[in-house]
């Protein structure tokens, strides 16, 4: 291959950074099935060229379940087209993305009601009955 070779459409925008990540997700799915161990992948720590992150999101697709969380800004949590593989996107109150994660798990922890919130909610409900 020479450097004078003309770039083709195939070269852009895909720089080859998505495929290894898909393999990592595949291995994490195997681990979830074999041992039940969940995996979280922080997308902020990985290199992506122009268009590659969108390509990853598009490749993972959309599954049956999605949820919106409203805490310190909005968050979108949705299962991808591959069950057990979740896409989490956290935004701040200015609607800027502050974190993107792929979680390989049965249910992301952040979807569960938390004991501290349940306790506070119970107190509020109790007050209404007083």
């Amino acid at each position, binding site marked *: 291959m020479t450097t004078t070779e003309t770039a083709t459409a195939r*070269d852009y925008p895909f720089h080859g950074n998505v495929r290894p990540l898909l393999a990592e997700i595949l291995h994490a799915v195997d681990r979830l099935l074999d041992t039940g161990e969940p995996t979280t992948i922080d997308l902020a720590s990985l290199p992506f060229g122009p268009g590659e992150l969108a390509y990853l999101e598009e490749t993972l697709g959309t599954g049956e379940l999605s949820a919106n969380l409203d805490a310190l800004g909005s968050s979108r949590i949705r299962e991808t087209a591959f069950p057990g593989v979740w896409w989490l996107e956290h935004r701040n109150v200015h609607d800027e993305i502050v974190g993107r994660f792929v979680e390989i798990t049965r249910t992301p922890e952040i979807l569960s009601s938390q004991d501290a919130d349940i306790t506070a909610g119970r107190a509020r409900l109790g007050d209404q009955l007083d």
Partner: protein
Amino acid sequence: MKRTPTVGEILQAKGVSRRGFLKYCATTASILALPPTMIPRIAEAIESARRPSVIWLSFQECTGCTESLTRSATPTVEGLIFDAISLDYHHTLQAAAGDQAEAARHAAMEENNGDYLVLVDGSIPLANPGFSTIAGISNVDMLRETVAGAKAVVAIGSCAAFGGIPGADPNPTGAVAVSELVTDKPVMNVPGCPPIPIVMTAVLAHFLTFGELPALDKHGRPLAFYGTTIHDRCYRRPFYEQGRFAETFDDEGAKAGWCLYKLGCKGPITYNACATTKWNSGTSFPIEAGHPCLGCSEPDFWDKGGFYEPLSTGNFDSGAKLAGAAAVGAALGAVAATAGRRRQAKYTKEG
């Protein structure tokens, strides 16, 4: 001394739910470049962390570091961090001036003796202390006085970390780095010209979360952000491996986003987080904008030769190392080194 609220209490007072707290911890782990498995430990530490006092000293600098920090589109996570530290002295940001400002610095030092954090941007002139003074106090005297009761010192930007532009040849002011003057306290360097905003806030968050400075490399830089080279995490790295290089700024390779090594990219020997953290709210970084990395987070980068000369011409003290890599058979390394030598010969002929 008044009892400072914990960060957990501050979040609770803001009406943040436990779910919100978990989100905060996840994004904090992300900005600290810590693995997601650390999230429970971060949650535990944040709940009990107390609001530390921070004194920011600006010496021979251009205020670019403060601009970088404050002009970034600040996410709420960082906003919370800044709500959760007490920035008691900062020339550019504080409302007080003159005697009142100096009184604030002394009050913070007294109230938090042994516990406060000192942040410094800018180098310190030793040739003549009169070259740079604040309130009639020379930079070197102010630094020595302020760090005396500090828990740790953070040198923000390449000037404070390594001398930077003021320290560049011929160094007319005798500028030195903070670490040359402060030898009895932990000193962390956060270089860059300027450093990435989120790296600055993340190291503060680390101190806030764990009460100590993070693990450092041989140049005193936090490994979480300076542990790998720009090249290691560059999205164009696959092109380097394939031997596809832009030869000029407007050729087909440049248009296709090929590797910028031959155009002088210092990514292979520059330790920083630009390639993943990126700039301007995560929009891009210099290489993504089509420009080679200048190596601004490395010591003395101003005096290392031309920005547009390939590393393999021997600048940046790395020619031998890269030539060695080529010799052991990195296929691309061989191509690059050959091209670099060609380029060097060309420069020699023309120069």
